[in-house]
Structures are given as structure tokens and as C-alpha cells.
């Protein structure tokens, strides 16, 4: 699960000046032809850095994203829901493993990435810094946050970096179950008692703002995407991704008779684009910089897990193996 787009570092105009122009032209031509870049190919430093950053954030989002849902496994209604939720959470952690591996092919070790996560240096998707008060919050994540993630991931799977695309193909195939499962849960709440309906409506009210934030700041304020789009690191602007999500899922939410807490939300029949109240980007920044309701808890849980697993890693330590960069 991942909301992309929002966290690329600022691009300085001179950062491409040091690259070999012939190699750069060859690199760009390859991407233009629709070919993938593989770890052993030449690539500009900026491409490498931004990809590490993006894939690493994606991996952290999977591992942290398992927490708000994982907390509901023991309280999921019934055996079937427990089994499904457990499998889903296990998938998310598995996705983190696949993504860390893809990022490692670019030269950053997994150790360093985990270190940067628990010290708060690296970011992850904002949406996981909010609490899951009820089962309905958990259902919102399973259905709609995953839906948003799939919009991003399907787009990114057509990107230019081979190892990332291969990881995403696998992830998207696994996530089709998450989406159907999430929708199934919400249909059951919607067609249940008045109390169940109210529970989901309240969850929707709580999660709508984080969901709109999920795709990153508006294109009006989010610069530096042009070169990343040309290199197929970023496959659509934040607003395009948000619009695609709204187009696919707002009708499905309305179909179930729920109200979306934004009076200005409507599709403009002329432009075909959704119009909505501008999300509060100050809140977004505040949460990404550690000020959300659960940032502290999420990192603390990871930190404790790291510390408690230390004796296992120590016991398994062996000098017969060595860390090397993965091949593909």
C-alpha cells in the first residue's frame, strides 16, 4: 500500500550538469523506447537517488501499513475475516521484503533502510499515522486505501526500473485479493444494521481527508515532477492519480448510500475531472514531519520489534555468508 508522489527531494537545476551528456542521451533514449533499466546499466545519480527514495518509502509504507490493520486481527468479526485479514497483513509485510530487495539493487543496504526508518529519517505514507478506532476503520483501509495504492502501483509498474516493476507486478497480483476482500467487508457493513452503517459512515468521515492527502500535494504546489516523469520514475502527477481514484471509487461509495464529507465533491461534466475542496496541505506537512496522531506509536512499535529481535539475529550470526547487492 503506498501513496506516491509527495516525497521526492527537490531537484536542483545543476544536478544533471555533471553527468556525461552522451551517456545521459543514451539512457533517455532507452527509456523513450520503453526499455527497462537494469541494475548493471548506467544511470544518472539523480535517477538512482530518487528511485532509492521512492522504493524505500514504498517499502516502509508496507511495513508500517501492516500495523493499523494488524491491530484488528484478534477482533475481526468471525473466523473467516480473521483468516483473511491475517493473510492480508502477511502479504503487506511480504511486499515490504520485495520492495527492500528492489531498492537494494540500487546500492543502499537493507540494514541502512531499516535504520533510517526507525530513526525517523525516512518517510512513509502519511495515511498510516492515523488510528483505527473501529472495525469499520480497518475495512476502510482494506478497501479504499488499498484501492488508492493499487492506482499508484499499477501506474508505477509501467515505470522504467526493471527490479521495481517486477516487484510491483507481483504485488499488484496479490493485492487484487485485498481490494475484493475490503469491498466485501464494506458491502456487509452497508447492508447490515443501522449501527453497522453508522459505523462505516463515521469511519469514512474520519478517513476522507487522509485519503485525499494520500496521493500527495496538488500539482499546483508540487513542483519538480517533469524530469521524473520523463525518466518514468513517476508515472502520473499527484492530481491525475487522485482523479483516477475518485473516478473509480466515489460512485462505488455513493452506490452503498454513504455520504462523502465534502460538499464540493462533484465531477465536472465538461472537463471530466473531479472537483473538491482543496485538502489541508498544512495538516499533511505536519503529519509527515511527525505530528500525526500515531507517528510516535508506529515508530516505537518498530523500534521495540527491532530491539526484541536482536538476540535472534545475534544467535543466527554467521561469518559463512556475506551481504552482497542483489543481482536483479
Amino acid at each position, binding site marked *: 500500500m503506498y501513496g506516491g508522489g509527495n516525497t521526492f527531494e527537490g531537484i536542483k537545476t545543476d544536478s544533471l550538469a555533471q553527468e556525461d551528456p552522451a551517456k545521459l542521451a543514451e539512457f533517455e533514449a*532507452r527509456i523513450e523506447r520503453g*526499455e527497462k533499466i*537494469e541494475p*548493471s546499466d548506467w544511470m544518472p545519480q539523480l535517477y538512482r537517488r530518487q528511485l532509492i527514495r521512492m522504493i524505500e518509502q514504498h517499502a516502509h509504507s508496507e511495513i508500517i501499513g501492516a500495523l493499523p490493520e494488524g*491491530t484488528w486481527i484478534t477482533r475481526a468479526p468471525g473466523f*473467516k475475516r480473521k*483468516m*483473511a485479514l491475517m*493473510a492480508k497483513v*502477511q502479504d503487506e509485510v*511480504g511486499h515490504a*521484503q*520485495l520492495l527492500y*530487495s528492489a531498492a*537494494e539493487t540500487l546500492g543502499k543496504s*537493507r*540494514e541502512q533502510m*531499516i*535504520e533510517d526508518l526507525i*530513526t525517523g529519517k525516512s518517510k512513509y505514507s502519511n495515511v498510516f499515522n492515523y*488510528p*483505527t478506532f473501529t472495525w469499520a476503520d480497518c475495512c476502510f483501509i482494506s478497501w479504499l486505501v488499498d484501492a488508492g495504492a493499487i492506482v499508484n502501483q499499477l501506474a508505477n509498474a509501467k515505470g522504467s526500473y*526493471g527490479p521495481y*516493476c*517486477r516487484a510491483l507486478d507481483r504485488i499488484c497480483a*496479490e493485492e*487484487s*485479493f485485498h*481490494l*475484493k*476482500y475490503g*469491498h*466485501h467487508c464494506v*458491502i*456487509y457493513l452497508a*447492508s447490515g444494521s443501522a449501527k453497522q452503517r453508522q459505523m462505516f459512515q463515521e469511519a469514512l468521515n474520519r478517513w476522507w481527508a487522509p485519503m485525499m492527502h494520500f496521493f500527495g500535494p496538488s500539482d499546483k504546489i508540487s513542483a519538480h515532477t517533469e524530469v521524473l516523469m520523463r525518466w518514468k520514475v513517476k508515472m502520473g502527477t499527484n492530481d491525475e492519480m487522485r482523479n483516477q481514484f475518485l473516478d473509480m471509487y466515489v460512485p462505488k461509495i455513493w*452506490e*452503498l448510500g454513504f455520504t462523502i464529507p465534502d460538499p464540493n465533491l462533484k465531477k465536472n461534466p465538461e472537463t471530466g475531472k473531479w472537483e473538491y475542496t482543496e485538502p489541508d496541505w498544512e495538516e499533511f506537512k505536519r503529519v509527515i514531519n511527525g505530528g500525526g496522531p500515531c507517528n*510516535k*506509536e508506529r515508530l*516505537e*512499535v518498530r*523500534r*521495540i520489534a*527491532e*530491539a*526484541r529481535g536482536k538476540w535472534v*539475529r545475534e544467535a*543466527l*550470526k*554467521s561469518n*559463512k*555468508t*556475506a*551481504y*552482497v*547487492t*542483489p*543481482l*536483479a
Partner: protein
Amino acid sequence: MNSLDPRVNRLPEINEPVSPKAPLDQFGTFEVFVQPKEGKPFQHEGIVHAPNLELAYVLAKEAFTRRFTCTSLYVVDTRDVFISPMTEGDKNTYDYIQEPPEKADIGSSFEIYHLAKRGKQHVHAGTVQAGTPQQAMAQARQQFKTDKVIYNVWAIETDKIRFTTAEEKELWLTLPEKKFRDASDYKGGDKLKEFLEKMIK
């Protein structure tokens, strides 16, 4: 901590700093190969980090064969994978590999993997007998080179691989029974239709 989840609140306080982490966590890297169906070739799926070959196998099983059909899996230390130069366009990587010497040593067996399309996985092409990985590449050139462009070749000494044993193949027998992990197990259509009809009334 003040969490909504009582289990999180029960987690112990960690008094010692966990960062910076000691380098001991940096386990070795192992490449993972999966055979999705009987009769299909093995293909490269990705990597795991593990302290030894046996644990790499266990972790690979969880990471790569949890969800989709699988009949066999193997792992090998990344350092035991010998790689040819990566090429592109109409350049065949085999053109950069020398012909085998006339009196080649055939001491060991090597598994040969081909990358036939950039962006895709390496797929098993066959097995050759040779004395060194370099000679295995040369043998592969002789046996497997065709008009089709191959962009990258891997040679792995067969003895270095942790294969799936005959008994272990049972690991995957229950995969098709675990329907709760399939999208097809979540058909909400009827329930939704019934609900929408009720809403209209």
C-alpha cells in the same frame, strides 16, 4: 505508550538505544528460483537475506511461494552466481563469451539461466558440464546459443544449490485449498444487488 491497542500498551520499555544498529544484522544474500508448474522451467524470483542456505530456503518459501502455484523452489548464495555482460538491442551476450577450449574439463554440473527479454526474469535454459564457471558459460554458448538474442547469462554450480527434496514438495499441496486468499472468494455481487433493490423500495 498510549495506544488504542492494549497489546501495544503491554510492549516492554526499551531502555537501550537500538540505533545505530550493529552490522551483525546484515545477513547474506541468496537468489531464489521458483518452478511455478510441473514441466515449466525454473525462473528467478528475487532474493532473501539469511544467515545460511537452509534458512534462506525457509524464508524464500514464505516470501515467494505463499500465494501462487508452485511445484518446486531453490536457493543459492548470490556469490555463487556467475554472470555474463549485460547487453542490449541486437547484441547477444554470447558473442562476448569465448568458445570452449578443445579439451575442456567437465568436473561439475552448472545450471544455465537466460535473460531473453530485458525487464523480465532470468529463466532456466539447461544444464552443462564444465570445470569452472567460465567454461560453463562457454559450454552454454555451444549448446544453447541460437539466433535469438540473449542479453544476460547466469551460470550456477549445481552442487551449491539448495533444492527442494521429494518429500518437501508436499509444502505446496494445500495452496489451492486456501481460497480465502483469492479475490474470487469475495463475491459480494448478490449481496450488493439485494441491498440496492431494498434501497430503491
